[in-house]
């Protein structure tokens, strides 16, 4: 598998406004060759605008885009060398699957094109559908055709614009895996826009979380999940517990009547919020843990591979918190009275 043509990409300080609205407010990204990066954020955050700027479909107000060694900032879409998969797939309804895939393969001999189309069909597992029209295919099949069409001219960059949003959940998960596997096999640098964190987590090497036209955090999925760089990222990605605190005189965090020990002593702001992932909460620990408090269990939801527990600390009544635990930890629960530990290393401080 040759990766020789994989390219890296640099996006530098892109600004783009629509009238008074700032869609992109100084976005910079570095993408390594062969990497799959997801642009994740709520709708209207600017992620699609960024993709369209990179594709040359919108022109940025300022900033530069470099693909490989080429500065493409001012180039028209045709000169940028990428393939793109749209949310709607934009398959041409009057052309067959074969013609759609071969659409970008002009200038080569007929036989070469035919061979390439066959190769692409095999790649996406649609051999035998050459003569069908897009209207005769299922949504998932249409997506594969669109992908094959985008990849057929061997572009150095692949852009995916919400590729899964038109599919139902089962197909979606399956295709996510397939798409990722294919991308790895081809080693093609890929940028994908999504508002769905599961997709991003499932597929990305790195995720750029975007909000209000700015990159809030750009890191691996693990890091994004474990150490969100901002309250927005923490809240947007995954579930979490928030505890408002004040700094106590000894550098610990004072939450209501209880004091929480942190990995390091507090020195900055006098007040803030603590963040903790539900699966970091330890329920009825068998060995001693720091920050151990008595609590009341309010609700338990069985999610198959894990359980979700809603509880209130006795010292903080009325403030619901979540914990997640493996099903095998369930026998340890008997009755509504439980002990929970909030390990210091799992607590993150936000201003």
């Amino acid at each position, binding site marked *: *598998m*040759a*990766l*020789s*043509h*994989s390219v890296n990409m640099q996006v530098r300080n892109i600004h783009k406004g629509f009238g008074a609205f700032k869609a992109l407010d100084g976005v910079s990204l570095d993408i390594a060759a062969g990497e799959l990066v997801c642009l994740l954020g709520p709708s209207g955050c600017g992620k699609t605008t960024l993709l369209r700027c990179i*594709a*040359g*479909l919108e022109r940025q107000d300022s900033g530069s885009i470099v693909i490989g060694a080429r500065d493409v900032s001012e*180039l*028209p*879409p*045709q*000169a940028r*060398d*990428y*393939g*793109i998969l*749209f*949310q*709607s*797939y*934009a*398959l*041409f*309804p*009057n*052309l067959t699957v074969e013609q759609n895939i071969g*659409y*970008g*393969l*002009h*200038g*080569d001999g007929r036989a070469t094109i035919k061979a*390439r189309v066959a*190769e692409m069909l095999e*790649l996406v597992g649609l051999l035998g559908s050459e003569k069908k*029209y*897009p*209207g*005769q*295919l299922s*949504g998932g099949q*249409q997506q594969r055709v*669109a992908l094959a*069409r*985008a*990849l*057929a*001219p*061997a*572009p150095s960059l692949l*852009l995916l614009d919400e590729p899964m949003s*038109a599919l139902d959940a089962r197909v979606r998960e399956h295709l996510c895996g397939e798409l990722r596997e294919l991308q790895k*096999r*081809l*080693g*093609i640098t890929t940028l994908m826009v999504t508002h769905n964190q599961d997709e991003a987590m499932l597929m990305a090497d790195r995720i750029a979380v975007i909000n209000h036209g700015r990159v809030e955090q750009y890191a691996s999925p693990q890091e994004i999940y474990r150490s969100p760089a901002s309250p927005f990222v923490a809240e947007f990605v995954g579930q979490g517990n928030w505890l408002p605190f004040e700094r106590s005189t000894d550098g610990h965090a004072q939450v209501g009547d209880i004091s929480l020990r942190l990995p390091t002593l507090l020195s900055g702001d006098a007040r803030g919020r603590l963040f903790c992932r539900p699966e970091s909460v330890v329920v009825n620990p068998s060995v001693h843990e720091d920050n151990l408090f008595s609590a009341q269990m309010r609700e338990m939801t069985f999610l198959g591979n894990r359980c979700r527990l809603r509880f209130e600390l006795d010292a903080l009544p009325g403030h619901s918190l979540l914990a997640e635990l493996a099903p095998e930890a369930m026998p340890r629960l008997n009755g509504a009275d439980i002990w929970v530990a909030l390990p210091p290393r799992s607590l993150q401080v936000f201003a």
Partner: protein
Amino acid sequence: MNIAAAPYRRQAPADLADRLFVRGGQWLLLLLLMLTVLLPLLAMLWRGFAGDASQGGGLTAAATLYSSANFRWLLGNSLKVSLTVALIVVPLAYAFAYALQRTCIVAKPLWRGISLLPLLAPSMLPGIALIYLFGNQGVLRGLIADNIYGFWGIVIGQAIYTFPHALMVLLSALALADARLFDAASSMGASPWRAFRSITWSGSRQGVFAALCLVFTLCITDFGVPVVVGGDYQVLALEAYKAVVGQQQFGRGALIGLVLLLPALLSFSVDLWLRRRQRDAMSGRAQVYHPQPSLNRDLAFLAITVLICLALLGVFGMAIYSSLVKFWPYNLSLALDHYAFSELPGGWLAYRNSLLLAVCSALFGSVVIFTGAYLIEKTRQTVLTQALRLLSFVPMAVPGLVFGLGYVFFFNQPHNPLNGLYGTLTLLVLCTIAHFFTTAQMTAAAALRQLDGEFEAAALSLKVPLVRHFLRVTVPICLPALLDIIRYLFVSAMTTVSAAIFLYSPDSVLAAVAVLNMDDAGNVGGAAAMSTLILLTSAGVSLLLAGLSHGLLRRSQAWRQPAPGH
């Protein structure tokens, strides 16, 4: 497998060709519209505001005209007639279009064909027929209380005249639908009425508005029908006609023409506003909707369709009958006497000229208009595209008479380098294309707007030049609309009178003008006969195009067939 490194590197960027296609095409279209619409119009308006007072021009004359009670009264009449016609025609045309596109009634091509009749003959013909039907000597005179001349005469005449125009816009608004939306609606248990309101209506209401505007503007600028069956009912367009033809008051005609421009400008702004709220109805993933039979619905729509067609057939049958009658109403024996055109000076030249004009206008016009609509709808919106959009609405608003005079004033200037065109068939072709630009452009734009907005982006990402994408994808998908435009331009060119009447020269005399002359000379039979000939020619060409379209669709448009298993 060596996928990524496969030797399919892109060609040299096709950017230059595309820029030439998009920018060059847009500027070319702008130039064309400036030359054939704006400048002639300005030449005419100049006569209105700066022209000499002896021809009813000048600012003082304008102030007097616009503030007079008579003018307000005429305006009121015009508005009343045009609104009445629009409110009668558009619902009927919508029902008709719905019957053709969204139900399973029998013999659709037949109804479609009959509905086109008014487009196929000069507007004089239904006028003549209405008088033979409901005039004082009319065969159905007993059915109505008063004679046909007046308000209702104009309304009926204009309703017949505008029906196919409205139908054309509405048919394309209802042409494409996503079957999945209907499946979704019925799976959610929505009633057909509910599904209609939320899917069909919301997808087509922009077309309804466009049709309303089109009918309204066609009526308010038409003088052909009021001249024939208007009696003493006065409208603004007729006032402009009287000013120019009766009193050579070009200035006054221009000032009234200016007022008639306003409805089109108004439609433009509302259309723009509505467009922002319209989403794509036909994405790349859409399934073409094919209606399922439903007995009650189909019977009801069949009844509406048949009634409308019977009315049209009655009117045109009467017209053809009148071309065969020796001397109405006193000698009703039938003969072909009125068809002896070779005795007229010029003989069949007028007819041959009309054919040539129609062929040229249809071919060049459809290419220019469809490509133009593509360049307006499917490229980055700029000041230029907005200007083009606005300009393409103007011709609809201009009464043909004002249009034709503007051509004389502009193209016959001693200083105009293009004045060599004056009196040639080339200028008549340009004038015909420009005069009928709006409807054709609206049809093209409506069809184009129903295509997925990402098609062009996808083509660009594949480094396919836009012009090639246009020919390979856009044109084939829009082929039915394109053939509609060709047919529309052909029959309009065959039947047009009002603008052409000032532009023909001895070599370029036209059949429809000959109709007007014969009618004017009292040779109603001859006028009816020539009209019938025009009608048959247009009908023949329409059938030919329909056959062509049918064959083409079957051969190359298999994608329109429903998917097996869906």
